């Protein structure tokens, strides 16, 4: 058993690619060996900026010999068949084995020397290597067929035991020679075998094990900070990156001018980390200190004095740039910045960022005015603004919204003075300023500071602190474990922003599919759910959709009209009720409120009108899509909390439920119920009833249409008639209606139980007391069990049979008062 060492030396490999490259090397190498039936006892890999190495332990000297038997023609077959077989196998008649009247060829394959297998495996691995980005180089690159590697490949060390495994690829010939540290040890070093590789390199100032370099940096940086009386801010990503940039890491502490601490600490940390890969430090109060730790790649003869000096200079220049941005940005009021958002396209079909801001601002205000987002303690002067009535439920008309385009400042609510502003005004103002930092210099430089910078600027520019923190936090929560906003102003803006994106992108037919979710809508939906559950917010998605639809409709109109240079009706301010497109021989005309615009070239209005029509019509399909999207997210979110996904389905399948908090309350009650003996038995009884009904063609009732169907309204639980019922529908006895024959005792008992349970359950649901609804259903369990035990549904008397089927249908419908039990598993 012998160890094998492979080192692929290259010009500097990007730090971010090294971890995956190690995995790929091990995987590809193992796969190549496996083709010859070889397996290493263990494979370890190393990566530095200049080399990728692998040690495979305990390989045999040769692959095992194998004997393969191939079946040939029958002995009775014509001679041509035999000749063909001999040609194919390269054997003679005498070498074949005869068994049961059939020829067999037995070919013994001798084992191959492992070194030979390796010599073929190395170039194969190199050629197949999946670098995220690769390149050509040198003279060979005259053709595009030349070898591609992450950077020019410089050398190959391939030692099986102490012997070189000879191979060549793209002019690079394998050997035992490599190089040490670029500056400490520029000469060639010769490796003896896998066993001295790590030590020999170490002697030449190369720590080949990335984890070791990581620990050296972690420890060295911590110590350097401690020596200065500071605490290092740990950053795992930076540790890995610096380990990937060095072969001989030496952490060094440097300082910067205290004056830069006037810049927000997040900016300093980001500048240091992103641009310079420095760690930052905290002082004993936990505040950012004017110090950093950089990781050099050499032991400098002056102890690093020059290196620290140089790095300090660079950071000072970076920070002075950041300070320049910060101070320049501070001079421009956010309101003024917000006015520039109409230059940034949010999405081709959803308008500019200014359009989005307009929608978010209106929705944020609406969320407050509808009482969905409330102050924990009522604010003085809170009340319904003038927009509240306009956002009401009028049929088909467009709410009287201020046009989104004319100077955004014009539609800003007055800056409320501290403490007395009402919540709706604060929410609207925060929403209108929330995206303003996107056009600031700082966010242009560091996009990841969006929100945060807006918060700083708002605070320094004298905005209400609640507005400032809403601007800062309105992107939250970003992913699981992030803080969930609780301040009502932030909640309103954050929720409005996310709902607008989800509904808008669904409307633009940009739904997430499979692994594709370019607008992170799944994350947004999860964020909506966490905000909702953390703050116990109650709203119906369909109402939000309807509210946004009107704004979208209005904005589409404006875009359509503004896009039309001929009619120049850009400043139409009154709400437009109806439009139509007239097509005639000279083109098409847009008719709005009796005014005709055009003619336009045929087809120009088509796209616009499609979009306008889309948002102009009530969107039942959108409702359904968005709802089931949320239901899916809800399942994901609740999985961790141990809520069964099938129960969410069971409640969701009833349709019409778009208040997710209520939906979840019902699911919780259901989960508790099906865990009880009553629940489990009722489920079994239900399934039995449902099966019989299915066999007899009593279709499942369709989901009850509209939100009247369930929850808020009284469910028509006692009526099994529905459009999907087979026709002609059997005539069904109404509640308590006497059957035309003498009912069996169990039958009568079930009928009576239903008469009592149905209204009780429906009533409880209407009051959102789902435990009580379950309890009402539980009373059905015993009568159902008794019914199945003593009554035969399939009675010879068709009247009895029908009546009993109808009874079972009533059971099914009654159960559906709380959930579609057919969706429950088990």
């Amino acid at each position, binding site marked *: 058993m012998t160890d094998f060492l492979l080192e692929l030396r290259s*010009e*500097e490999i*990007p*730090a*971010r690619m090294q971890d995956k490259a190690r995995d790929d090397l091990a995987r590809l190498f193992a796969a190549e060996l496996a083709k010859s039936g070889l397996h290493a006892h263990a494979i370890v890999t190393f990566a530095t*900026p200049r080399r990728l190495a692998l040690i495979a332990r305990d390989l045999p000297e040769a692959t095992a010999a194998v004997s393969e038997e191939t079946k040939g023609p029958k002995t009775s077959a014509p001679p041509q068949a035999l000749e063909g077989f001999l040609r194919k196998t390269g054997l003679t008649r005498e070498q074949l084995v005869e068994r049961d009247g059939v020829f067999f060829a037995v070919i013994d394959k001798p084992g191959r020397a492992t070194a030979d297998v390796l010599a073929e495996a190395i170039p194969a691995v190199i050629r197949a290597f999946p670098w995220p*980005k*690769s*390149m*050509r*180089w*040198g*003279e*060979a*690159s*005259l*053709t*595009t067929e030349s070898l591609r590697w*992450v*950077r*020019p490949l*410089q050398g190959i060390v391939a030692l099986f035991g102490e012997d070189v495994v000879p191979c060549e690829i793209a002019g690079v010939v394998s050997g035992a020679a490599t190089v040490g540290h*670029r*500056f400490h040890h520029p000469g060639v070093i010769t490796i003896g075998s896998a066993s001295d590789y790590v030590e020999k390199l170490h002697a030449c100032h190369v720590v080949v094990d990335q984890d070791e370099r990581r620990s050296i940096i972690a420890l060295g940086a911590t110590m350097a900070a401690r020596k200065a009386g500071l605490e290092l801010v740990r950053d795992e990503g930076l540790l890995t990156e610096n380990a990937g*940039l060095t072969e001989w890491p030496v952490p060094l502490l440097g300082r910067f001018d205290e004056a830069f601490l006037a810049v927000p600490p997040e900016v300093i940390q980001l500048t240091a980390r992103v641009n*310079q890969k*420095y760690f930052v430090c905290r002082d004993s109060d936990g505040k950012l200190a004017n110090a950093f730790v*950089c990781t*050099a*790649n*050499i032991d*400098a*003869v*002056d102890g690093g004095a*020059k*290196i620290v*000096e*140089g*790095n300090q*200079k*660079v*950071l*000072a*220049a970076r920070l*002075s*740039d950041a300070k*320049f941005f910060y101070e320049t940005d501070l001079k421009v009021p956010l309101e003024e910045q917000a006015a520039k958002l109409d*230059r*940034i*396209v949010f999405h081709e079909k959803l308008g500019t960022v200014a359009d989005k801001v307009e929608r978010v601002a209106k929705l944020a205000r609406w969320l407050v005015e509808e009482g969905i987002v409330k102050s924990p303690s009522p604010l003085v002067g809170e009340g319904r603004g003038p927009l509240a009535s306009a956002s009401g439920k009028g049929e088909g008309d467009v709410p009287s919204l201020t046009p989104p385009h004319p100077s955004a400042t014009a539609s800003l609510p007055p800056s409320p003075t501290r403490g007395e502003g009402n919540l709706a005004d604060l929410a609207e103002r925060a929403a209108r300023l929330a995206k303003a930092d996107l056009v600031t210099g700082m966010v242009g430089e560091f996009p990841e500071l969006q929100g945060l910078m807006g918060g700083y600027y708002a605070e320094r520019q004298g905005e209400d602190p609640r507005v400032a923190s809403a601007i800062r936090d309105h992107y939250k929560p970003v992913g699981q474990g992030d803080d969930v906003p609780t301040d009502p102003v932030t909640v309103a803006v954050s929720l409005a922003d996310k709902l607008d994106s989800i509904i808008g992108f669904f409307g633009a037919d940009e739904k997430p599919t499979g692994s594709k979710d370019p607008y992170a809508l799944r994350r947004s939906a999860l964020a909506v759910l966490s905000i909702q559950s953390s703050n116990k917010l109650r709203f119906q998605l369909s109402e939000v959709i309807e509210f946004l639809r009107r704004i979208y409709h209005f904005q589409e109109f404006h875009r359509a009209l503004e896009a039309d240079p001929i009619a120049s009706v850009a400043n139409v301010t009154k709400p437009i009720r109806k439009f139509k497109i007239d097509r005639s021989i000279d083109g098409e005309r847009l008719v709005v409120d009796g005014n005709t615009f055009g003619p336009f070239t045929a087809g120009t209005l088509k796209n616009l009108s499609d979009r306008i029509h889309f948002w102009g019509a009530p969107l039942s399909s959108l409702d359904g899509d968005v709802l089931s999207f949320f239901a899916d997210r809800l399942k994901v979110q609740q999985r961790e909390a141990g809520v069964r996904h099938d129960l969410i389905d069971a409640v969701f399948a009833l349709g019409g439920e778009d208040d997710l908090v209520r939906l979840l309350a019902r699911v919780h009650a259901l989960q508790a119920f099906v865990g009880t003996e009553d629940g489990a038995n009722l489920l079994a009884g239900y399934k039995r009833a449902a099966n019989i009904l299915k066999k007899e063609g009593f279709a499942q009732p369709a989901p009850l249409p509209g939100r009247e169907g369930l929850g808020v309204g009284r469910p028509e639980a006692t009526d099994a008639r529905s459009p999907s019922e087979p026709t002609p529908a059997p005539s069904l006895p109404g509640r308590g209606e006497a059957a035309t024959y003498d009912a069996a005792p169990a039958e009568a008992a079930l009928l009576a139980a239903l008469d009592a349970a149905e209204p009780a359950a429906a009533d409880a649901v209407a009051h959102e007391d789902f435990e009580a609804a379950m309890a009402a259903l539980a009373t059905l369990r015993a009568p159902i069990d008794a019914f199945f035990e003593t009554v035969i549904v399939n009675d010879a008397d068709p009247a009895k049979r029908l009546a009993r089927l109808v009874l079972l249908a009533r059971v099914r419908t009654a159960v559906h008062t709380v959930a579609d039990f057919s969706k429950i598993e088990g």
Partner: protein
Amino acid sequence: MILTLHDYWSAHGCLILQPYDMEMGAGTFHPATTLRALGPNPWNAAFVQPCRRPTDGRYGENPNRLQHYYQYQVILKPSPPDLQELYLGSLAAIGIDFTRHDIRFVEDDWESPTLGAWGLGWEVWCDGMEVTQFTYFQQMGGYDCKPVAGELTYGLERLALYLQNKDSVYDLAFNDAEGNQPQMTYGDVFLENERQMSTWNFEVADTERLFDLFRKATAECESCLEAKLPIPAYEQAIKASHVFNLLQARGVISVAERQAYMGRVRDLAKGACASWMEKNGWAA
């Protein structure tokens, strides 16, 4: 320093060329780089190129950012196998001591959307400061480089900061005091220039005239292409590119338009490259 680099690269087989007499955003725009990177012929050259980046202007207030500065440009085609060693040799030649300074090759993939070009390489750090852009060109003007050229772009001011141990570019000594010539700093020569040019770039430049210039350069480029004159066509593409940079500094190009303008310049540059390939009879 420039003379040392000239000596060094001349000794390593490079032609020593002069700056191109047009405003450009990077030395790579010099036709000796862009056009010569195409086609199969070997090409080794070194030259200084002044660069103008209007948006980088800081009114002379940032010690490290200038809207006008100098790059030292080396192109070696095909890229020699020891290019990294050659490069380090040039740093040693201008006096960088590798026992005291930390030289690093940090991933930086280069892409010029306006030239339709990209390459892989690094930014070379000296004690954390980027002093050189090191690139293996893979494509130019949308064409695969066959063979690949290696390009080195030295930031001359930044290197001088190290060699002279200064904190601000404006404090760099421009000369040694000799005879009746007093000692002059980089600031003495360029500070006022930076102030005035920043003001012009950001605040004054007449955007209507700039838009007009852009249109004219575009039109001129197109007529050169029609006349099958790739070199003057390429010059007009450079001009359009610089005018576009000025318009950006004036903040009159929206995000959506930006892409469209860059695409326009790219089309011109690509057109010039295509015409150059055709004129030389090179296949794509």
